[in-house]
């Protein structure tokens, strides 16, 4: 499903009030009637079958034992089993490590590029296109490509490049110490462009009078950055931070294809564990139980997102 593999498409830039509120203009052209319902019906049916029903069913399956043929209620047995799995702690720690590394590496980069691109005049168009380029590359291609870059021998592309400056060779994906970092590099490459474009949209919407006023008051470029640019970006920064956390805790494709969870389970993530329960051990109930726990935990971030954006949109 697209919301797991590709982004949870939450509009960071859209105030929650706008999302949840009905249209402001209260005039209605058609209050009822069969025709509006018929127009919406196919899409409503799609949402019902492929969006609302699976969410509800996820709550149910977590308390069932099912193997595609028979289904029976087992209470909280699935949760007990998942919580007793020694791999759960490992997967949780790995996923948290991934999220932390992705934050340290991947979070400042788009901000930096967006701030610099916003200052460009004639070259802004080409720079925006360049920054967005990796976003349109299928992750499978970038993963397979970076896997070649990560060749641990001295002749590997990265190790050759590091050799020019006298470092390495590094084991990259082959060692538990560097495997997760390598995965973060690939994922960051594929994702930094979309964040950068969102920051850029925020930066270009800043009222230029603020800069002009500060300049007249004698503020230097760095002071203006600190006192105008950063405060104006604050809302977008916090929202993207929460969205990134929600996304990184559902990381799957990169570790699945780069390491398969190895070496020594050092890159096994929560979503890979869910995948193993369901599609390797055939235990959909346990997979749903772990999915439910992860979703509830991530809903805290989603709730924080709702609360913050509601608070800001009232200003």
């Amino acid at each position, binding site marked *: *499903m*697209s919301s*797991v*593999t*590709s982004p949870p*498409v939450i*509009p960071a830039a*859209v105030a929650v009030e706008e*999302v*949840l509120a009905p249209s402001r*203009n209260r*005039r*209605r*052209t*058609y209050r*009822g*009637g069969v025709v*509006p319902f018929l*127009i*919406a019906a*196919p899409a409503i049916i799609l*949402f019902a*079958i492929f969006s609302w029903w*699976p969410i509800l069913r996820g709550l149910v*399956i977590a308390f069932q034992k099912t193997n595609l043929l028979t289904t029976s209620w087992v209470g909280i047995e699935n949760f007990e089993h998942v919580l007793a799995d020694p791999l759960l702690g490992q997967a949780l720690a790995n996923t948290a490590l991934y999220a932390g590394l992705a934050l340290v590496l991947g979070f400042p980069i788009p901000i930096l590029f967006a701030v*610099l691109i*916003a200052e460009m005049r004639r070259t802004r168009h080409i720079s925006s*296109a*360049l*920054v*967005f380029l990796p*976003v*349109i*590359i299928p*992750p*499978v291609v970038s993963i*397979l490509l*970076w896997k070649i*870059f990560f060749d641990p021998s001295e*002749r590997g*592309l990265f190790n050759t490049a590091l050799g020019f400056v006298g470092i390495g060779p590094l084991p990259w994906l082959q060692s538990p110490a560097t495997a997760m970092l390598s995965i973060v590099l690939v994922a960051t*490459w594929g994702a930094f462009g979309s964040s950068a474009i969102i920051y850029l*949209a925020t930066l270009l*919407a800043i009222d*230029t009078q*603020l800069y002009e006023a500060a300049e007249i008051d004698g*503020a230097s470029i760095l002071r203006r950055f600190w*006192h105008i640019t950063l*405060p104006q970006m604050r*809302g977008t920064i916090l929202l*993207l931070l929460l969205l*990134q956390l*929600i996304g990184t805790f*559902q990381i*799957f494709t990169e570790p*699945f294809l780069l390491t398969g969870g190895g070496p020594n389970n050092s890159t096994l993530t929560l979503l890979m564990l869910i995948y193993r329960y*369901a*599609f390797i051990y055939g235990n959909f109930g346990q997979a*749903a139980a772990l999915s439910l726990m992860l979703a509830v935990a991530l*809903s805290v971030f989603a709730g924080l997102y709702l609360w913050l954006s509601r608070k800001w949109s009232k200003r």
Partner: protein
Amino acid sequence: MTVDGTTRTRTAGMGDAWRKRVGTRSLERSNVSDSDLSRRSTRFTFRVVIAVTIGLLFVISAGPLLWLAKSAISATQDTLAQPFAFWPSGVQWHNLVDAWTQIRIGQFTVNSLMITTGEVIVAVIAAVTLGYVLAVLRPRYGPILNACIMATLFIPGVISLIPLYLTVIDLGLLDTFWAVWLPNGVSAFNVLIMKQYFETIPRELFEAAKVDGAGPVRILWSIVLPMSTPIIGVVALLAFVASWKDFLWPLLALPTPSKQPLSVGLSTIAPQADLAVLMAGMLIAVVIPLIVFLTFQKQFLTGAGSAGAIKG
């Protein structure tokens, strides 16, 4: 300086602001102004920083793709032994043909095109019809429907992966293209941006058409759709890229190799394939989204600027 109090409400209109400002920048400014640049030392530093940024962006973003293009037409041993050399044993154009035929890239490409086309059609139809009903027709149950759709934006996707798989099996759709076309067409985000666009169309147009005797379908077809081609393009492009990039869902929904798209196909043939041929296949998988992106850059950047999309 007290600029904290001026934090504005953030709305989807930022995309418009971006579109309006980009390109018409000669008299505008960001932080750095023309008078800053009139000082020689500032101008020098500014130019160096900008040049370094562009250079860095080029190496980071385009570098890996250019290397892929080079290696796709290199011999395997050249790529492995001298990754930075240019074709020491000559250019191997036949890699591309080999990939298309020997490792079934041709088949995967056709599948990808089929899958993506279907997903784009479903996504556009769903977004247009729901957006139209919610923004223009506004039936009594509209607010409830809207809340149900938008709530799915805030529910982590992981919860529906397993139940969606079981639902697709129950419906007998597993291993058919419908299993990817229909679930991936369901996007609350597409409905949201379509709805917000439709809300900007003056309602007087609909009232006038209604007085002239046009029904809801006629208004959609003759007024709303012709006025909405830009946003339909944005939704179609976002759906296209999301579909072309998707991996986990087609991996689960299409177990038969002859039905799989490029993303899944490449991942399964990668362990056995000859490296040069594999990289030729990867290049083929990149070319189509690359052409679409270069053709519709403006729409992509507008769409991405108003969307908040983070890789998961």
